């Protein structure tokens, strides 16, 4: 060790003499080097560093000095960081310990959730109106209890279920479910990455992609979580999303989580969309970005809040023209539209793989199983399996749900009688609701928002009727609510809207008590909605119901609406 130190001191003196160096620099430098040396020798492996430094001093002393000063600066920078942070926090008031205690003492938080009895009085009636199905599954005829079993209705015709096809109740599917539970148990007990995906899960993915004609499918645990998770897996700041202005809350959440710039186009208005896309592309060209951002058009197959259908062929034209990707939420259209229930593309005679880039679907609607899924190409699916949170960080679906979904699709591939029947029922639902209206006042009170091929029929009060009776407009509701949302109010309540909701519920109640038919309000929460929306009534048909029963029931519903609206 002695020799080593001697060496170093002489090492410093090797500095070229051609350039004069103040002697104090040489001495400090030698001294630092000496200490460093002593330190390093003690660390295991340190002598390699010493050897290296010595060699480099011999070769190029100036470089060594620069390196050392860099290291010193690095250390200085590292140490000085906390001070900087402190100075940034200078808006922190300089308070004494007592003052802090006082502030803490003074602070009164709001209750955890809104506890206002007044609000509860205005809104709480909804809880009593939730139907509870007793003693059996959710079929076409059910036993219903409401308001803590104070009201019980037997043999009620169910016109509010989203399970449009009756295949899930077929013996074949039920046997498959029982068999699967007998072999797999119920839960999968793990996320997809960790042994949670079983052969049945993979095979449902193959079945889905075969049935819908895409390269891949990815399964999710719940339909409502799919859109937010998928969209935000592919978007980042700077990406562009253009969305229909009537999309449902699930996609609104997705847009919020996407971090992208969001634009809306007028509902199903292709000119407005074309114009918007041209403008966006022009703006992008002006900006001269280093890379093209990812760009999506987002819409729904059958709209959740209106039952309208998106014009797919036009959307496809526009997406190709403007080089956007098309993202469609087909929660309500899958299993419904098209001759075999393959959804929107089949309905319009297109191929899914050529028209839609990302499809979101639900197995809990027409299929009557559980969970959600996405359809798309291999690359997109592959990235979802790594980047999509609801896929990676959640347990796989129970084996029986995926096995039953596979079975249901197998049945649908070979036999489209249920889908055909549903189409006929949808038509009857529509025709019965619209026929003969010239002879009565129904058109004065309500408008039908849905497309005639949708199995869900949405009825809204006409703007005029709403204004006359409840004294507000759609825009007024939207403005009031978004104002309250902006202010982060804990009491997002708009009384005229509440009154209209109560009126619609009165219709539902009357239909239930008088005719033993269960329909429902479209339950949405203005508190969360970020787009204009108004209350509506929802009547849906399932292929389990007979045609006569349906048309009879719709007539009765119509009669009730007329009666209640005219007497309001």
């Amino acid at each position, binding site marked *: 060790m002695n020799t080593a130190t001697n060496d170093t001191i002489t090492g410093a003196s090797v500095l070229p003499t051609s350039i004069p160096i103040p002697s104090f620099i040489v001495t400090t430098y030698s001294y630092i080097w000496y200490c460093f040396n002593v330190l390093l020798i003690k660390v295991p492996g340190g002598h390699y560093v010493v050897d290296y430094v010595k060699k480099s001093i011999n070769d190029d002393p100036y470089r060594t000095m620069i390196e050392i000063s860099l290291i010193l600066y690095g250390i200085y920078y590292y140490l000085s960081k906390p001070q900087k942070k402190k100075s940034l926090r200078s808006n922190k008031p300089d308070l004494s310990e007592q003052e802090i205690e006082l502030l803490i003492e003074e602070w009164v938080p709001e209750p955890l959730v809104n506890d206002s009895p007044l609000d509860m009085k205005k809104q709480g009636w909804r809880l009593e109106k*939730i139907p509870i199905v007793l003693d059996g599954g959710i079929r076409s005829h059910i036993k219903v209890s409401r308001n803590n079993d104070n009201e019980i209705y037997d043999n009620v015709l169910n016109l509010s279920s989203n399970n449009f096809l009756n295949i899930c109740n077929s013996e074949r599917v039920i046997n498959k479910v029982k068999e699967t539970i007998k072999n*797999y148990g119920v839960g*999968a*007990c793990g996320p997809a990455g960790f*042994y949670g995906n079983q052969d049945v899960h993979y095979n449902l993915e193959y079945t889905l992609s075969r049935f819908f004609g895409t390269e891949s499918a990815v399964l999710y645990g719940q339909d409502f*979580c799919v859109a937010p998770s998928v969209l935000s897996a592919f978007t980042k700041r700077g990406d562009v999303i253009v969305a229909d202005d009537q999309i449902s809350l699930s996609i609104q959440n997705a847009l919020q*989580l996407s971090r992208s710039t969001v634009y809306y186009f007028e509902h199903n208005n292709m000119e407005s969309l074309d114009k918007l896309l041209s403008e966006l592309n022009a703006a992008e060209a002006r900006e001269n970005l280093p890379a093209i951002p990812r760009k999506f058009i987002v819409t729904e197959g059958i709209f959740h809040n209106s039952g309208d259908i998106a014009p797919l062929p036009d959307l496809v034209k526009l997406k190709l023209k403007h080089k956007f990707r098309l993202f469609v939420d087909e929660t309500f259209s899958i299993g419904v539209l098209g001759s075999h229930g393959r959804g929107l593309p089949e309905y319009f005679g297109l191929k899914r793989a050529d028209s839609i880039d990302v499809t979101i679907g639900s197995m809990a609607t027409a299929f009557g199983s559980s969970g959600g899924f996405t359809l798309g190409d291999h690359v997109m699916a592959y990235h979802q399996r790594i980047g999509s949170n609801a896929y990676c960080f*959640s347990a796989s679906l129970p084996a029986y749900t995926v096995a039953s979904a596979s079975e249901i699709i197998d049945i649908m591939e070979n036999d489209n009688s249920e889908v055909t029947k549903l189409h006929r029922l949808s038509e009857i639902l529509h025709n019965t609701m619209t026929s003969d209206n010239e002879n009565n006042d129904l058109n004065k009170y309500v408008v039908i928002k849905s497309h005639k091929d949708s199995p869900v029929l949405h009825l809204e009060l006409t703007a005029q009727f709403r204004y006359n009776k409840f004294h507000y407009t759609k825009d007024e509701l939207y403005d009031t609510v978004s104002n309250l949302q902006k202010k982060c109010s804990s009491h997002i309540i708009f009384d005229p809207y509440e009154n209209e909701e109560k009126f619609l519920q009165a219709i539902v109640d009357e239909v239930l008590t008088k005719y033993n038919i269960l329909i429902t309000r479209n339950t949405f929460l203005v508190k969360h909605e970020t787009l204009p929306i108004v209350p509506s009534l929802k009547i849906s048909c399932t292929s389990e119901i007979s045609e006569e029963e349906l048309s009879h029931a719709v007539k009765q519903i119509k009669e009730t609406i007329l009666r209640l609206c005219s007497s309001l």
Partner: protein
Amino acid sequence: MPFKEDKRDPTHVPLITPPNLPIEIKRENEFGTLTSKTYLHQVKSFEGKEIPDPVIDTPPYYISIITYVNYLILIIFGHVHDFLGIRFQKNKYTDLIEKDGMAPWYSVLESFYVRRLKKRIDDCFSRPATGVPGRFITCINRVSHKFNEYFTYPGTTRMCLNLSSYNYLGFAQSEGKCTDYAIKTVEKYGINPGGPRTQIGTTDLHREAERLIARFVGKEDAMLFSMGYGTNANFFNAFLDSKCLIISDELNHTSIRTGVRLSGATVRVFKHGDMKGLEKLIREQIVLGQPKTNRPWKKILICVEGLFSMEGTLCNLPKLIELKKKYKCYLYVDEAHSIGAIGPNGRGVCDLFGVDPNDIDILMGTLTKSFGAAGGYIACDKWIIDRLRLDLTTPNYAEPMPAPVLAQIISSLKIIIGDINPGEGQERLQRIAFNSRYLRLGLQRLGFIVYGNADSPVIPMLLYCPSKMPAFSRIMLQRNIAVVIVAYPATPLIESRVRFCMSASLTKEDIDYVLRHVNEVGEMLNLKLNSGKSSWDGKVQRWDIEEVIKRTPEDCKDDKYFVC
């Protein structure tokens, strides 16, 4: 659909025909019979006492350095690979570069970690399985091609001891009371969920299950959701907004973070388990108030998990309750991994710490784990639940929980409570307690570094080097043990680990088998790095395997051998 076995795509996972086993063997494969009454342990409540901070054992420096170097090499090679690949093998990169004027789904850089690091060990993830993930899990064999570019499936399977599933109480079964009830429910209720809970999706089964859960966790009322992730992800926006503050443990689950982001609330993070830091943060935030405006926060919610799934550590509940009361904050505890698995009666962290569940404002949990079902719940006071039913999005928009899952929840809960088959629930609880302690202490004595609390059924064992992860996982698979490895970003960069999830379905002999093999593999991979910091006597532990197996089953019941 007729079988098309012959035309099967070899890259597709085959559907495995279930083996025709005698029922006793099937039962035994799903849930091993207890071999001796001595292999049970009754957990005692801490009776409101705080737990000491966990002692984190650290590896020698050279291990950390090797780990960093290991990553460095992977990253440098990856970049060189990409650099050359983009120039000379363009056809392999078509998905990653702009095409026809459209951005790629993922760019070269965005997907670097996935392509160049994760892909190398893809064969250790997403192993397809079949059958019940009980005591044994049947893995479907696969052959990797072109460095995990794709897999083919010869159609054979391998039965592995299951240390990977969240099957804490062993309810992943296809024989027994739960299955019978589930099948009976399918017959009566079918499987279709109807529609959102507020429209049509509520049945009397939901009501029954919700009441049971409320009773089980000790709250007035509860609410069920069909997905655990979705429970959290769509929860916080019902009552928080940007004028509220969430104080969150840094290791909270992604579902909580997603939910919090959706609510728009401000988030401040405290270091995992650091109660002093938490208190400082709360004080500071009450004084500072909202950023810019400096107005006081509307409310402050502390978010923690009961049992952290990657660390095996418990939240310090008594201290949290004390802080929450002192500073008028609200407390949210996610009991995804602790409910059912922890506590003298399996009722989660409140049960274990012996605190009143009413001191916690919101108890959340998932039913995916201990109960062998799926979904999540929220349990609160009745007035809160009533308000939440009105304000939460999930019951108004999303699918409800289907009947067979509800049946599984109801029956497994009743078994744990003792309403069905009295004694069975107790045995399951005592078995998981014993099993967890036995494996944990056994691994420590063999010389491994293990994180977490004594009673945690999640037992993370540290591997450090990224290259040891696939090695460990593959060797264990060869020895018929299914394990889960986790690395960055789920853990800190250098703390790659293997996570053993204990189950009541394993017998003591199964754990002996695991210990013997982990011991051998640990020697092989130089994983015995225990420095004694976290052992009870402060000594370096390098016990002989026979000694461990002989003495640990008795010792593990004694709290003194565990530092936390």
